[in-house]
C-alpha cells in the first residue's frame, strides 16, 4: 500500500515506522525538518517538508497515487482540512484523521470522515480501568 502521513509527531513517526516494517511504501510530511529525527536514522520511507494543507505539498508527497492518507498533526483543523482535501480533491480511498476535540470529531464523523478521537478513547479506557 502507498500511504501518505501528515504530521511527524509521536503518532505519525510510529505509524510510519510500523507501516514501513510491514512492507508499505510511506511518505511522511511535516513542516519542521527536526520532526523527522523521530523516525530514526534507518527510516526507509520518504520525507517531505511542507504545509499539509497546501495542495502542491501533498502532490509532492505523491498523494495522487496514494491509497491511504493519514492526518495526525497537532492541529485539529489542519487535520480535518487536509483529510477533506485528500478525499474530495485527490479522491484518496482510505482517509483517516485525528481530531482531539470530541465535539468537532463528532461533526466531521457525521460529514463522512474516518475520525479518530484519542481524547474520548483515552477517557473511556481510563474510566474502564478505574471502574474494573
Amino acid at each position, binding site marked *: 500500500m502507498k500511504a501518505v502521513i501528515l504530521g511527524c509527531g509521536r503518532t505519525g513517526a510510529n505509524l510510519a515506522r510500523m507501516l514501513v516494517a510491514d512492507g508499505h511504501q510511506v511518505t511522511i510530511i511535516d513542516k519542521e525538518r527536526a520532526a523527522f529525527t523521530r523516525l530514526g536514522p534507518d527510516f526507509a520511507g520518504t520525507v517531505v517538508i511542507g504545509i499539509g*494543507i*497546501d*495542495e*502542491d505539498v501533498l502532490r509532492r508527497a505523491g498523494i495522487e497515487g496514494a491509497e491511504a492518507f493519514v492526518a495526525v498533526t497537532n*492541529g*485539529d*483543523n*489542519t487535520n*480535518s*482540512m*487536509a483529510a*477533506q*482535501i485528500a478525499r*474530495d*480533491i485527490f479522491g484518496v480511498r482510505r482517509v483517516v484523521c485525528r481530531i482531539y*476535540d470530541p*465535539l*468537532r470529531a463528532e*461533526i*466531521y464523523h*457525521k*460529514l463522512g470522515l474516518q475520525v479518530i478521537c484519542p481524547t474520548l478513547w483515552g477517557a473511556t479506557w481510563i474510566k474502564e480501568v478505574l471502574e474494573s
Partner: protein
Amino acid sequence: MYIVVVGGGKVGYYLAKSLLEEENEVLVIEKDARRCSLLTDELVGASILQGDGCEVVYMAEAGMGRADVVIAVTGDDEDNLAVCQVAKHKFSVPRTIARINNPKNEHIFRKLGIDVTVSSTELILSQIEQVLPAQSLFHLLTLRNVGVSFVELEISPTSPALGRPIRELGIPDDSVLPLVIRQGTETIIPFGDTVLEAGDQVIAVTAEASEGALRRILCGDETCSDQVVVREY
C-alpha cells in the same frame, strides 16, 4: 441581522465596525485576552467573547444557533474552514463567509460548501491588474455557476475591430456588448451598426468559453490571458 465574526485582528476589527455602522447585531470571538480588552473598548455596541472560535462551546455561548451570518477572518485558512463547517453543520447557520489567505484554497472551500470566500491576496492582485497598462481584458464579475463573465476591454489603436460595424466583427453568439464608454464620459448602447473607436471601453457579457474569441476579435491578441485575475462577488 445577527452576525458572528470569528477573529478579532485588523480585518475582524474593521469588519465588525462597518457591520455595526450598518446597524447589525455583532459579536466578535477572539482568542487573545489583550486583544479582547482592546476590542471591548473600541467596538462600542458589539459583544466580545474571549475564546477559541473553532470550539463548539464558545460557538454555543456566542449564540451561533440564531446567527444569520458567520464570517471567519482569522489568519489561518484551516481555522476559517473549521469555523464555517461547524457553524453550518452543527448550528445550521444559513450563510458562512471565509477569508482565504492562500488563494489556492478557494476551490477547496467552495467544494466543501462554504458559501462565500474572500481572498485578500486576489483582491489586491485584481486592483493591481486594473492600474497596470497593457492588459486588454479585465474581469469585472464572474458568475461561476452559470459560466458567464462580465469583462471590460479597451479598444487599442491597432485593434482589428476598428472601422467596421459591430455586426461584421463575428462576435460569438454567446457574447453581447451591452455598453461602450467613449472618451471616458460618453455612454453608448451599441447596435449592429455602431463602429468602435480607439480608446473605447467596451463592457461585454460573455460565456467563459468565448472569452478568447472575443479577445481576438476586439483586441487582436490572446497574450494577456495568463495574466487575467478573476474577481468574484
